[in-house]
């Protein structure tokens, strides 16, 4: 195997020192001069028409400065990221509790919040809908043109014929709930008006280029007049994909009108009430299988609760539809995925993006099928798992690096998997069991988002041999900065200590698309390789002159350039100085885009994503039959990442993903009352603590992806995707009853235990 200097070596995070000393300044820690403060004013009814907004009481408050609303928008009142269905400031129709009507501006943050509470909004209420079922039943008064936000289909083979070939046809329905991101740092930004009608934004966000476009449209100014910089961001998980466009564009409108910097930071309660969640899904699976355990047909209906606006529903639905049958070969398939508007906060991007939901469907289904066939669940999976040169349900041939089967075997062996599945503990009260789940994850944006799937870096060599890298994606906790430094050092064959990764800003690099879909390693890595390829001839020419040899005789390694014939060498510092003094160009932009994808959207046929990551998780659970409490005791996670860039970072992603998945599976419950979140606090919305999370044993497998940098693929999202399914499979095996819903609360476990049927 080829040896790399930095790729594959555990690297300490370059941002860790500032974070352990408290020096890192997050948005709320930044001093802002002359700033005024904003607080949102939003609908308190889930659906209705605003008749009047009464500011009388708010205006009397000390500190009140202004009220910003739809009339103040110089450009378009529209912030929908894909469909143009979402106003920046709602007027006159409001579609969820939290639909923002305006901003109060005051001289302190506290005054702004207090004033916002004093605003009286008079509404003519409409009849709201909260569930997918009610949304479908609605016959008039739709939220938008209709209540259907989007739909996607995947058709393969002949579904009727497929079911004829089946010895068993097994049907089941599942549902999964919303999940709140609960990033510890809330949404926030500072919008600063600049001379000449320009504007600068600094914000906690994932997608600076989304914000740039949103702000430009809303203010009616060229995108070139909008500069967006990312502040160190205290967690995001998809929750800061499109939502910051709203937050920043609102603050921008205020800053433009008032002529002063505007700080808008959501309170925790507002953050939860106003912003996106993981889409709740209902799923119907009908799967045909032969006696020998070969899948022959799958008919699947996936329905999503989109909430009040479409936001990213269409791409969540797309991803869920093409991944609905997991990494298995099924010749005859008919999948329909639909998203419905309701009067809840808009659901959107959350780590996994429809995959954890669909994986709950297909992986529960695989266990139910295995039970019917009296076959070991791992064996059933291995019989059907996709291997090289086989086709996905969209008919895409996987030609390279399908490590799915190996992840299954690795996790199975590590966990000491036993077919019987359960072991009773000393008392009758506790029973433990293992559960397995496998998934695949299409990397980057896929056919539905190909036009956004290009990314850039800008590399600059400085005279002293230090190097700056600007990249267009962001660090949000996942370790991007460190991976970018590693990849740059590797690509240029220099010491990593030379590298400084700059904070992400729209004026440093071309539009690089969103920091989502586990795409940073692949996109930025390839862009770095492209930039290095452009710099290399320049470095080579200069080195040849310095070493007094032919260019073809120069090689680069270990922080220096060498003459391969004589062994003479010069250090990179000397080389940089020579470049500088001889006016060589010392910076360049690297660019990479995902190879074009052939996909027929009407049939859902073709290349859905350019490559897939694979993972298998095994959960060990202990069920207390007296209380119904489920404790996850241990997790084994095997991930095919193509090539590990920073193994320690991968483990961190997996451990964090597993813990977030445990929360979704067992304790996190977002409770709404007439569209209002009534479980916003940590005492009511239960996040896993250190005592609730499990030790994770992570195995990293490397089946290189030819289109990935050094063979790498993404890891951020696969880390959470199979978790809840593995836990539900384990609990089902432990108690001998099938579970069809999340979360697996003590109540649901006890009620399953007391029911008669299995």
């Amino acid at each position, binding site marked *: 195997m080829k040896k790399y200097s930095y790729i594959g070596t555990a690297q300490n995070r370059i941002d860790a020192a500032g974070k352990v000393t408290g020096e890192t300044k997050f948005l709320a820690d930044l001093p802002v001069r002359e700033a005024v403060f904003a607080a949102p004013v939003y609908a308190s009814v889930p659906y209705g028409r605003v008749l009047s907004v009464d500011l009388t009481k708010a205006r009397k408050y000390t500190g009140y400065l202004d009220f910003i609303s739809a009339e103040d928008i110089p450009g378009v009142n529209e912030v929908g990221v894909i469909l143009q269905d979402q106003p920046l400031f709602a007027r006159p129709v409001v579609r969820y509790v939290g639909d923002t009507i305006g901003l109060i501006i005051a001289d302190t943050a506290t005054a702004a919040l207090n004033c916002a509470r004093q605003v009286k909004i008079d509404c003519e209420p409409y009849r709201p809908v909260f569930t997918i079922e009610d949304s479908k039943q609605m016959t008039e008064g739709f939220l938008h043109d209709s209540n259907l936000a989007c739909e996607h289909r995947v058709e393969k083979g002949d579904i009727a014929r497929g079911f004829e070939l089946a010895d068993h046809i097994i049907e089941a329905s599942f549902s999964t709930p919303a999940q709140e991101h609960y990033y510890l740092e809330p949404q926030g930004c500072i919008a600063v008006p600049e001379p000449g009608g320009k504007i600068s934004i600094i914000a906690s966000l994932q997608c600076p280029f989304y914000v740039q476009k949103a702000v430009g449209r809303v203010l009616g100014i060229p995108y070139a007049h909008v500069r967006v910089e990312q502040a160190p961001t205290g*967690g995001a998980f998809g929750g800061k994909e499109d939502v910051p466009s709203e937050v920043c564009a609102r603050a921008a409108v205020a800053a433009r009108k008032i002529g002063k910097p505007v700080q808008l930071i959501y309170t925790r309660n507002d953050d939860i009430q106003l912003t996106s969640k993981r889409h709740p899904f209902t799923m119907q699976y009908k799967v045909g299988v032969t006696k020998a355990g070969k899948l022959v047909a799958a008919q699947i209906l996936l329905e999503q609760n989109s909430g009040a606006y479409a936001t990213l529903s269409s791409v969540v639905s797309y991803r869920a539809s093409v991944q609905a049958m997991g990494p298995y070969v099924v010749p005859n398939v008919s999948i329909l995925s639909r998203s419905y508007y309701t009067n809840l906060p808009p659901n959107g991007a959350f780590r996994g993006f429809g995959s954890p939901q669909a994986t709950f469907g297909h992986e529960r289904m695989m266990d139910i099928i295995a039970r019917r066939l009296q076959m070991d669940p791992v064996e059933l999976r291995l019989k059907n798992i996709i291997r090289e040169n086989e086709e996905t349900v969209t008919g895409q041939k996987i030609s390279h690096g399908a490590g799915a089967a190996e992840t299954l075997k690795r996790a199975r062996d590590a966990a000491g998997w036993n077919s019987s599945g359960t072991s009773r503990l000393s008392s009758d009260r506790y029973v433990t069991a293992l559960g397995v789940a496998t998934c695949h994850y299409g990397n980057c944006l896929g056919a539905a988002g190909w036009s956004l799937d290009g990314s850039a870096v800008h590399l600059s060599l400085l005279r002293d041999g230090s190097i700056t890298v600007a990249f267009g994606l962001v660090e949000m906790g996942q370790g991007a900065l460190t991976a970018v430094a590693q990849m740059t050092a590797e690509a240029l064959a220099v010491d990593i200590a030379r590298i400084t990764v700059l904070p992400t800003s729209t004026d440093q690099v071309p539009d690089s698309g969103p920091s989502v879909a586990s795409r940073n390693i692949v996109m930025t890595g390839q862009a770095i390789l492209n930039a290095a390829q452009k710099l290399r001839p320049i470095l080579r020419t200069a080195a040849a002159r310095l070493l007094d040899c032919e260019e073809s005789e120069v090689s680069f390694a270990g922080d220096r350039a060498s003459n391969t014939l004589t062994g003479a060498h010069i250090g990179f510092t000397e080389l940089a100085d020579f470049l500088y003094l001889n006016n060589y160009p010392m910076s360049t932009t690297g660019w990479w885009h995902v190879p074009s994808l052939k996909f027929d959207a009407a049939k859902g046929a073709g290349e859905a994503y350019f490559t897939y990551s694979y993972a298998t998780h095994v959960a060990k659970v202990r069920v207390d039959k007296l209380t119904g409490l489920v404790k996850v005791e241990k997790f084994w996670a095997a991930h095919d990442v193509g090539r590990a860039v920073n193994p320690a970072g991968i483990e*961190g992603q997996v451990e964090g993903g597993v813990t977030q998945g445990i929360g979704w599976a067992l304790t996190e419950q977002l409770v709404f009352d007439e569209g209002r979140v009534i479980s916003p606090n940590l005492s009511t919305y239960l*996040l896993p603590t250190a005592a609730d999370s499990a030790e994770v044993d992570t195995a990293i497998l490397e089946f290189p992806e030819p289109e990935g940098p050094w063979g790498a693929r993404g890891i951020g999202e696969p880390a959470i995707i199979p978790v809840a399914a593995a836990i539900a499979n384990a609990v089902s095996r432990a108690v001998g009853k099938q579970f069809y819903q999340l979360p697996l609360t003590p109540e649901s476990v006890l009620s399953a235990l007391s029911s008669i049927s299995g």
Partner: protein
Amino acid sequence: MLSVSNTDYFDLELTVNGTPVRRRIPTHLRLLDFLREELGLTGTKEVCGEGECGACTVLLDGLTVDACLIFAVETHGMEITTIEGLSRNGNLTPLQQAFIDHHSVQCGFCIPGMILSGEQMLRDHEQLTREEIRQDLSGNICRCTGYQKIVDAIESVSRDRR
């Protein structure tokens, strides 16, 4: 007893990170806001404001408290250590260094509180098992790391000093 000279303001004297501090402050000011707004010690974070997350953990006379839950006036005459006060002259504490070496940090928002809780845990116990660390740490929420590498860091310091 506190001598409140005026109903709204109070002359607070205390030691913060080894330095004596005197400030006239509103009596209703939370310790968290005093540290962040008055002293500019922004390493102490606010997440829940309700004593549930531990992000605002500081040491008050050596014991961990949630700075969002107490008023600054309650700390009169006492000694406070925030995350900024742990490292001296750029020298990290063994636990801070362990957080770097064990890859315990992701977004970093929970980390100041985690480290201060860990410091107290290490002071209180000669030895710590992973299970004890997990139990003791359950007042500090992290949404990124899954805690495992945070437990690794605390465990390693506990082990190394034996």
